[in-house]
């Protein structure tokens, strides 16, 4: 009885999550202009039309570009912030953490308006750069939340060993800390990329006229009925692309963790103390 309920609940959950996505993919191949049942026939026409629509592909490329730049920059900042947070002594640690994570709880729309006003005051014209900056602000907390725990979990003795063997702080960081952070850096990049790619509020305020990002283009386009089939086709492609990226990332993460597991401290017998030091 209990098991039947749980099973039913599980499948209801799956349907709730994936039905909209499945519907999107099905209608992408629908011959009719309107996404309604019954389906009258199958076609790949909308994909062809979407890719020959330069406005659409332009918006898509803009979003991919901004997403990639955001992912790289936010991840780089996230590494620096995590190193700072990992310091043994840090004044006002709680305040620093609060400031870093603040964008998580501030509505994007407020940030967007604030950025717009600020740029106006500074006399800077809104541009795709402004969108990029806004996206770095909102994705930095994700980068820190992904990278910092990984950094924290590294055995400090590993970095000390590198220093002991003649590396200065920078070399030890580059040769030991950074390679060990790689799995978290990949995760951070993907999360920041997706967040930026998906973001509408900031982009709608800061993207200059005629240069919409993909979500902005989708929003304005979805009100023009003629565009809808194209948008559905592109939307279903993005879903498939996301699944591929996630599968690759997860596979990569597992591979990296298997490789990094190697011989680690907890698998080895240890005494109570640092055994020896020699001159």
């Amino acid at each position, binding site marked *: 009885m209990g098991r039947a309920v749980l099973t039913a609940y599980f499948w209801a959950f799956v349907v709730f999550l994936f039905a909209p996505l499945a519907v999107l993919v099905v209608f992408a191949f629908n011959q009719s202009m309107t996404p309604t049942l019954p389906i009258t026939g199958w076609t790949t026409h909308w994909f062809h039309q979407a890719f020959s629509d330069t406005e659409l592909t332009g918006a898509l490329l803009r979003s991919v570009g901004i997403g990639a730049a955001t992912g790289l920059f936010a991840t780089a900042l996230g590494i620096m912030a995590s190193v700072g947070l990992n310091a043994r002594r840090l004044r006002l640690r709680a305040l620093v953490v609060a400031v870093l994570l603040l964008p998580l709880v501030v509505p994007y729309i407020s940030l967007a308006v604030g950025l717009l006003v600020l740029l106006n005051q500074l006399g800077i014209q809104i541009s795709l750069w402004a969108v990029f900056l806004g996206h770095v602000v909102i994705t930095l907390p994700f980068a820190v939340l992904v990278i910092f725990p990984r950094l924290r979990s590294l055995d400090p003795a590993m970095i*000390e060993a590198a220093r002991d063997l*003649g590396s200065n702080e920078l070399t030890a960081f580059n040769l030991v800390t950074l390679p060990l952070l790689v799995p978290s850096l990949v995760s951070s990049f993907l999360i920041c990329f997706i967040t930026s790619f998906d973001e509408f509020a900031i982009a709608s305020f800061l993207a200059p006229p005629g240069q919409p990002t993909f979500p902005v283009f989708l929003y304005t386009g979805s009100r023009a009925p003629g565009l809808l089939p194209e948008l559905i086709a592109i939307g279903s492609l993005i879903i498939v692309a996301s699944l591929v990226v996630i599968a690759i990332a997860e596979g990569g993460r597992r591979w990296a963790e298997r490789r990094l597991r190697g*011989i680690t401290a907890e698998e080895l017998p240890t005494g*109570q*103390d*640092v055994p*020896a*030091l*020699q*001159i």
Partner: protein
Amino acid sequence: MGGEIQLVALVKRFGSVTAVDAVDLTIPQGEFFSLLGPSGCGKTTTLRMIAGFEQPTSGQVLLDGADMAGIPPNKRNVNTVFQSYALFPHMKVFDNVAYGLRRAHVARAEIKQRVSEVLEQVQLDEPLGSLDAKLRRQLQVELKALQEQVGITFLYVTHDQEEAITMSDRIAIMNQGHVEQAATPREMYEEPATAFVADFLGVSNLMDARATRTSGAAVALDLGSGIVVEARAGDVSASGTVKVVIRPERVTIEQAGVTGPNRIPAMVTRSIYLGNGVRVITHLATGHSLTVLVPSTGDGTPASWEPGESVTCHLPDSALRVLPLDSGAADVQPVPAT
């Protein structure tokens, strides 16, 4: 070649906790020196200050006479073996071994040759977890031989006293941030300077006593119940309340009724067969409990003493050592329970 380590009034405080409290030590080049002590005694912090991972609150670390203040670990001519081994999991075995050589800008061909030589001596299919007690002892001897052969200074931090005694030229026993005593293993064992050292290293019988009369090289000690013994080792000029210590193997058990100086009537409470001898725990007429180690005799049969048997314990005056009452003695149990 060098390799002398000198610690001058070294202090390390973490907040209100003093981890290392005014440590002075000189470790000459080529010595195998062990820091021994209970957890939290400051031995690891001392090591970390020498390696450069911690900055002293005050005092100095001198390596070959050069003050190391502000010198980072990579600029110090010391190398640490970490408890966790600190192998780099993202590097191959070869690269792990080659790491230090590369940082020292050794030529590629030489790195390859030296790493290969090292790896030839490593049995990679032998998991380190199977290092049993026997193999461990064997490795200790080899490590010591290697150290002597290469002539480098070793500073070994351990809580394993057998390890420290086996390998060290000298040992320092630390307690609550300060050095209780620094000496050769033999001196440390035979002539402990404090009750803490006597109790920490090996098995000791520690008793409270009152020094009643000093006469040159000997002091009369009242152990209570009107029983007085003479001691000729340690601080024989002491007066008032003192600690007196004797090692179990220095006590001899005689038949009940034997009288003479330094002989105390006792009753056997437990007798534990050890293989190479018998550990007999006795209850002295003074109320103290005294552990005696009776070695096996030539024919392989240790004298047997049964619980409940009345005996006489002989505590030779040359083996009775008078120690000053120190603060470290506060957390020392008077006599081991078993």
